[in-house]
């Protein structure tokens, strides 16, 4: 008996009990769709994060106070990094020193941040204020929707000009054009010179659009601080970024201890984030796999019932010439077919589900998750079908024929 015949017998047996087969497959359908869906959400999130980092520019070196990375890889503990970050900040001497590394450094962006209320006529909004230098938008690529960024001289002179984040502009001005309008930040009046492009939210976290940008010097004067919270160095395009990081670190080490600052590029932080997201994806997939296990047990249960119900049929087939192996393969194919069909349907559901959530979440069905689902559902069928199939193959034809 060839495989096609065995497959045909198995399919016929499955379609003989349509409702039962459908209910049996349900466990695998739910299991596979959950695994694929969660993996696709995880992968989509990972891809989104990678893209977001790439959008920031690939030649950037980020310098932050405190030791961001632990010795073992990954981020250092929150307490450790937060304490360091609180104890240390940078100042304009650091900017000056870094700018001297002309061989490696093209531009240096820096900022300090405060929080305050911004007002236009009767409209008010609590917002984050980024006080940055003029190079900030070129290094960290903050595209403008309208108007312009502030200039070097506006920064140096501490002029009261502001670039509004998209959300701030929207809420304060509505349909009115904000350019050249006067707003009050705290007690000080500013002129709007630009509006940033919409950046979107951060997966339910604070919006990147509820922010305003003013010159660093202006912020220093109003809030009476010269501290720099973070610096970003744009390295020259003609040198290796690793060499630039080494140079920047050597420069910083002249003024700070090793654990008082971190200098890293996006790949370093991206690797850590990817590791974390992969762990989350695996964990979620693992939890979903439990339902696949339950689905497999369902298949085994039904196959055992099926073997008992069809004992006489098995006896007849054996009497008419079926070998134990042919019976074993018939029932194994039946279990595997149920499971694979469930897997394919589950995969289809996961695909549709991923498409459905794409407007709000960057889900992405990968070929790996498809192969995984297909492989796992086949394995589930074969593993959980093995015991019932083996039982069927070992039945004595005489006993089986006598079975009522």
């Amino acid at each position, binding site marked *: 008996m*060839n495989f096609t015949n065995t497959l045909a017998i198995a399919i016929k047996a499955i379609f*003989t009990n349509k409702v039962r087969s459908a209910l049996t497959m349900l466990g695998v359908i739910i299991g596979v769709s959950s695994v694929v869906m969660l993996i696709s959400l995880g992968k989509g999130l990972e891809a989104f994060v990678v893209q977001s980092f790439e959008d920031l520019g690939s030649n950037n070196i980020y310098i932050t106070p405190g030791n961001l990375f632990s010795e073992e890889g990954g981020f250092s503990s929150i307490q450790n990094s937060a304490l360091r970050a609180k104890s240390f900040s940078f100042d304009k001497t650091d900017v000056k020193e870094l700018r001297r590394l002309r061989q490696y450094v093209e531009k240096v962006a820096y900022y300090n941040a405060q929080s305050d209320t911004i007002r236009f006529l009767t409209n008010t909004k609590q917002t984050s204020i980024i006080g940055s230098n003029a190079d900030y938008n070129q290094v960290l690529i903050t595209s403008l929707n309208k108007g312009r960024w502030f200039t070097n001289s506006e920064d140096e002179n501490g002029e009261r000009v502001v670039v509004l984040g998209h959300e701030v502009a929207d809420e304060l001005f509505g349909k009115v054009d904000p350019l050249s309008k006067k707003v009050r930040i705290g007690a000080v009046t500013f002129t709007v010179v630009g509006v940033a492009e919409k950046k979107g939210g951060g997966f339910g976290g604070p919006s990147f659009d509820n922010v305003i940008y003013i010159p660093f010097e202006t912020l220093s004067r109003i809030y009476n601080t010269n501290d720099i919270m973070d610096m970003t160095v744009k390295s020259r395009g003609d040198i290796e970024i690793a060499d630039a990081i080494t140079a920047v670190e050597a420069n910083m080490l002249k003024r700070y201890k090793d654990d008082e600052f971190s200098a890293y590029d996006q790949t370093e932080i991206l690797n850590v984030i990817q590791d974390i997201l992969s762990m989350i994806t695996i964990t979620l997939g693992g939890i979903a796999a439990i339902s696949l296990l339950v689905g497999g047990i369902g298949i085994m249960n039904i196959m055992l019932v099926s073997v008992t119900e069809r004992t006489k049929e098995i006896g007849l*087939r054996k*009497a*008419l010439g079926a070998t*134990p192996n042919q019976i074993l393969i018939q029932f194994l194919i039946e279990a595997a077919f149920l499971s694979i069909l469930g897997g394919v349907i589950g995969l289809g559901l996961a695909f549709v589900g991923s498409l459905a959530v794409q407007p709000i979440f960057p889900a992405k069905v990968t070929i790996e998750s498809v192969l995984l689902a297909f492989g796992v559902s086949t394995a589930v069928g074969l593993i959980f079908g093995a015991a019932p199939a083996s039982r069927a193959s070992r039945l004595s034809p*005489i006993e089986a*024929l006598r079975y009522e």
Partner: protein
Amino acid sequence: MKKKANKMANSQPVLKLDNVCKSYQLGTQLIRALECIDFTINEGEFVAVIGPSGSGKSTFLQVASMLAEPSQGKIFLKGQDVTSYNEVQRARLRNQEIGFIFQQFNLLARTSALDNVALPLVYAGVEMSERHQRAESLLKKVGLGDRLKNKPNELSGGQQQRVAIARALINDPSIIFADEPTGNLDSKTNKEVMGLLQQLHKDGRTIILVTHELNLAKTAQRIITLRDGQLLAEYKPPYKFKD
């Protein structure tokens, strides 16, 4: 289909049981279902095995048809010693050399008459088109040419048994075992089925009929009687029986 003259009934032995016994363990008790018996059936012969319930008829059929292994003795099929055949070899032997007709028909429910008849050919590795062609031809021969697509529950008892007979013939077996083939039939269909068996015998088929009905057994060329697992006597026509 084999076309052999009935006169060949005394030619080559098809099946030979040489001092064959069958016993099995039931808890701590050893049940001797078949005492050591000798039995031979020649090509084209029609033999009936009769006896009351518990006489060992079923055990005889199971051992002789390769469904069960003997505890002792030797079995020869067409001169070949098949006693020590393993499970796979026995399955192939049943498929190629033996045809079964059961009391309960044993047809696959939800499967057409055509596919039921063709079932042994599936395990013989025959292509589907040939399977259907041969099954159709046999169903026509047993008078069911118009019921090819009908499922067992759409057929009468007599028709179902005729499907089973066609199935028994599909692989052109050396020997046909009919186990109480009319046990589930009324008197009219009983006659039809027995008529069919006699026709097969006339066509040169070797048949072993297991029954507890003396009247049916009398249609055979030879009758052997079993009691308590022992071969009690052997009769040839004209039959004269004591109680």
